[in-house]
């Protein structure tokens, strides 16, 4: 096992997994408490359009998908804010648009379809130094934005109270949505587009079962997210099964155990 960690690709996989596990769980608490789980799923699908655009342009896919998905996220937030359409409708429209855009681009350059599959299902062991760079960048920005936790949390609890206290709630909403998009993109190589929403939601949902405060929920979600990655990677190595899906299965097991434990408390 320790020999395995001496391999560069395995080190990259572990590091990328840990960073993505921590950041996705951190933002997941806002996604869960604001009832935006569908946004995570929608943005993950929107990332497919960005990845396809990157492949089409012969550029590093994640570095194209990152601004592309952030842009889609901001458009969703804008439509949600400026119209009477529900947030889920805005997500539904833009994620369908992005997927359709991606499918057309991939059809135009069919030699890249196999590469796109790596993003669809995730391929943590194929994380490149460039992928790791994108993940590290998102993690660093997340750390820099930690002072926003208190503002996001306040508006999550009650938007009117936060606005009455003169917080720029609208700006904070856009920033949060953009960061969720960035985290989703950074996670697609690790768990895949199809499962990335679970990466956001499950650790946060599990943490919610045991938390008395929002700060506790945040810390516990990050711990569970990281633990899920470590346990999932070990299990996927031992049983030779896809790592992204195994991580999600481990996190789901934490959630189910949590449900059972809470019923007994």
């Amino acid at each position: 096992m320790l020999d395995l960690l001496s391999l560069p690709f395995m080190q990259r996989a572990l590091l990328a997994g840990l960073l993505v596990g921590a950041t996705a769980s951190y933002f997941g608490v806002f996604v869960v408490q604001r009832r935006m789980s569908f946004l995570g799923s929608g943005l993950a699908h929107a990332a497919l359009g960005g990845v396809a655009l990157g492949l089409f342009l012969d550029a590093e896919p994640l570095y194209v998908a990152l601004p592309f998905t952030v842009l889609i996220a901001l458009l969703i937030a804008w439509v949600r804010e400026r119209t009477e359409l529900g947030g889920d409708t805005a997500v539904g429209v833009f994620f369908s648009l992005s997927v359709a855009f991606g499918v057309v681009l991939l059809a135009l350059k069919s030699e890249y379809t196999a590469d796109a599959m790596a993003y669809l299902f995730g391929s943590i062991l194929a994380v490149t130094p460039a992928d790791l760079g994108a993940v590290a960048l998102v993690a660093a920005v997340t750390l820099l934005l930690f002072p926003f936790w208190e503002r996001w949390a306040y508006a999550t609890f009650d938007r009117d109270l936060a606005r009455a206290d003169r917080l720029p709630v609208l700006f904070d909403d856009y920033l949060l949505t953009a960061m969720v998009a960035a985290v989703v993109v950074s996670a697609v190589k690790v768990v895949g587009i199809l499962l990335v929403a679970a990466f956001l939601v499950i650790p946060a949902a599990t943490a919610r079962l045991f938390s008395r405060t929002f700060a506790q929920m945040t810390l516990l979600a990050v711990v569970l997210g990281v633990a899920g990655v470590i346990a999932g990677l070990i299990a996927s190595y031992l049983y030779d099964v896809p790592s992204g899906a195994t991580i999600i299965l481990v996190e789901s097991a934490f959630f189910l155990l949590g449900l059972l434990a809470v019923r007994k408390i």
Partner: protein
Amino acid sequence: MEFAVEFEDVSVRFGTYTALEGINLKVPAGAFVAIIGPNGAGKSTLLKLVLGLLRPSSGRVLVFGVPAPRAPAEWLGYVPQFKTLDRSFPALAIELVATGIRRRWPFRLSPVEREASLEALRRVRGEELAYRRLARLSGGELQRVYLARAFVRRPRLLLLDEPATGMDVLGEADMYRMLERYQREHDATVLMITHDWEAARHHATHVLVLNRRVIGFGPPERALSDECLRRAFGHVGHPHELSFSVGSRDA
């Protein structure tokens, strides 16, 4: 005379719907104003204008001479309807009280914030609620926590949206005592939405009868006249005593 709140020809429209029209009002500093009116009269809209949460379609709102959206948050203590609380949000009562000081959701309370929040809870006789989860509190207990949150920053202006909802008779009387004590000690102004005309008559220095327009404003005995009530509600009896209402609700 200093005015806590001034409305200068204020109207609020949402598309073709007019929520408030031609509101002209001067609330003297130190007044205890009860705002009454039927559902849809624009009472909460009026409070939101003072809080700076809503911009008027025309006219302007001043808080102690400052345009409402620019009035410092420290001046305002807001008690929303407890029904708006998201009970799924994991939080302790003391954290909510502390938002009154920090104006953020606290990741961790400082000793100063903790002590000030406990003191505010003591003031509303809710110290034992401090470390209880918000989701587990009754309506009356929640209102006390929100009241402590409003008191903790020592605001000049208290804005309360139906604060007696969920309280029993004793709890309601207690709340009025707390409000009046705070007002006395801090020379504060109170704007409170209520459906209880009797409480308004008994505790308020001024009553604002609203139905999209100002129907009456002044001392309770004048504002709660039969004429004003009929124009606002279409009847003059206390709502608790009526099984139906008659006449038009339009002012």
